[in-house]
């Protein structure tokens, strides 16, 4: 009999350039923060899931989950498992934690997402991130992830009259949002002119259309909803969890302007939650590039296909808009420590549903988080509700 699952504790590091802190140190900081928030002792944790992408390539450490579990001093009976799905790793880790608690095989599960990136060069990071492409075909061409989303952008502009200005407005909104977020990498005001005039990375995507390489970790503690009140006054219920599988490359995606993996995961998560896009009050979605925010907002059902850019221009996704998207600053401005991102989004929306976010969406009751790995190879959509 599946049990309902709730988030009873959240923890995080800042996202950004965290000099002097390695991968394991970041993960342990976030885990201890979450355990403290949940009033749970480490000895009570029945399982640890770690969402991480490039620990081996960038930080020189594999077997990262037992490494973290050991240093945290978890019980020797406690399984510690890394899950990986490129940029989706954090969202997948949350879902696995959910499944274990829901099944009754565990009472308390710790989920952490972590990535350490900024000590490596931009080229090394670009090379590492590109490993999420099909290395037998698409990767060989020298296309970067920015390049793949640039291909999406150019065609989206051709078919739907989306403009470079729409892209700049996504980035500008997210930079405005992160000014108030103490966890964000970028907290300074950035003018629209600076975004428009920034260096071209892959036409039509400029530097400010691309999320920054970042370090960071975020963690949550999960337990059965029926027990959540014994730990905290402010549990947040997980009402929908879904993961899907798309295509292994952009060229094999039947319509590259729609990531079917997102569409399918959203449909499953909404069905499980008994909710629809109109019911969502706040969204943290996968804006690895400004173009991705536009496509994601369409694929998740918030706007018709082709209207995502216009919705941003109309202010519909601002904090005071119809559907606030990425009040945290998103990947573009809060930062994208890849494996940490999905769990970091959960951190942000739990604060929203507790009513304690720095960019609080008024009366937020339902929140949605979304990750996409690669160009739609894997997607997760998770839906949360105030208890």
């Amino acid at each position, binding site marked *: 009999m599946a049990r309902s699952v709730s988030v009873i504790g959240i923890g995080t590091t800042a996202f950004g350039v965290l000099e002097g802190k390695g991968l394991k140190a970041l993960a342990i900081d976030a885990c201890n923060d979450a355990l403290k928030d949940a009033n749970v002792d480490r000895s009570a944790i029945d399982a640890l899931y770690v969402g991480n992408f490039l620990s081996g390539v960038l930080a020189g450490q594999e077997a990262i989950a037992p490494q973290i579990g050991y240093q945290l001093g978890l019980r020797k009976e406690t399984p510690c498992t890394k899950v990986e799905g490129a940029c989706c790793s954090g969202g997948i880790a949350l879902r696995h934690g959910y499944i274990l608690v829901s099944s009754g095989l565990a009472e308390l599960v710790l989920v952490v997402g972590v990535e350490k990136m900024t000590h490596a060069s*931009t080229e090394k990071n670009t*090379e590492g991130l*590109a490993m999420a492409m099909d290395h037998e075909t*698409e990767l060989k061409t*020298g296309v*970067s992830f*920015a390049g*793949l989303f640039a*291909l*999406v952008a150019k065609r989206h502009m051709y078919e739907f009259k989306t403009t470079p200005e729409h892209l700049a407005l996504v980035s500008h909104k997210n930079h405005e949002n992160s000014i108030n977020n103490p966890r964000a990498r970028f907290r300074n005001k950035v003018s629209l002119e600076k975004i428009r005039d920034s260096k071209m990375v892959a036409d039509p995507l400029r530097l400010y259309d691309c999320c920054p390489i970042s370090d960071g970790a975020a963690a949550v503690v999960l337990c059965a909803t029926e027990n959540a009140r014994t730990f905290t006054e402010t549990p947040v219920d997980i009402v929908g969890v879904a993961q899907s599988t798309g295509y292994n490359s952009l060229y094999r995606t039947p319509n590259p302007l729609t990531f079917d993996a997102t569409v399918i995961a959203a449909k499953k998560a909404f069905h499980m939650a008994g909710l629809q896009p109109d019911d969502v009050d706040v969204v943290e979605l996968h804006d690895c590039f400004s173009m991705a925010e536009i496509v994601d907002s369409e694929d998740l059902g918030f706007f018709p296909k082709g209207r995502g850019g216009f919705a941003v221009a109309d202010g519909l996704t601002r904090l005071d808009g119809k559907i606030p998207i990425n009040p945290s600053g998103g990947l573009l401005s809060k930062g994208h420590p890849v494996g940490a991102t999905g769990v970091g989004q959960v951190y942000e929306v739990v604060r929203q549903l507790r009513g304690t976010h720095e960019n609080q969406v008024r009366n937020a009751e339902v929140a949605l988080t979304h990750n996409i790995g690669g160009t739609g190879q894997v997607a997760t959509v998770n839906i949360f509700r105030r208890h």
Partner: protein
Amino acid sequence: MVTATPIPVIRCRACGRLGIPPQYMCDACGGCEIDPAEIPGHGRVYSHTTIRVAPDAFAGQIPYTVVLVDLESNLRITARVTPGSEDLVDVGRELIFDRLDADTGYWFRVVP
């Protein structure tokens, strides 16, 4: 029409479905017998970009053009454009197949 080298692809022996190599089984019918095949060497630009910040191994080549090319038989491929004619690349522009390189994949040229 400019004469173009045929594009090497693969075909499922069971259902005849064409695909871009390598594929280890047919995602459509589940068949595991995959044969080499060819399609005409013409395509059209579905979308394009110029890479200006590149992965390590390609840093010496910037700027370079990457295209998504619509091919015959309902196939599409991510490919490179042979230097010299990149400025002419645009959505809908006709391309002809240049070569398949073991290290860098498919290359196309713009039809002048």
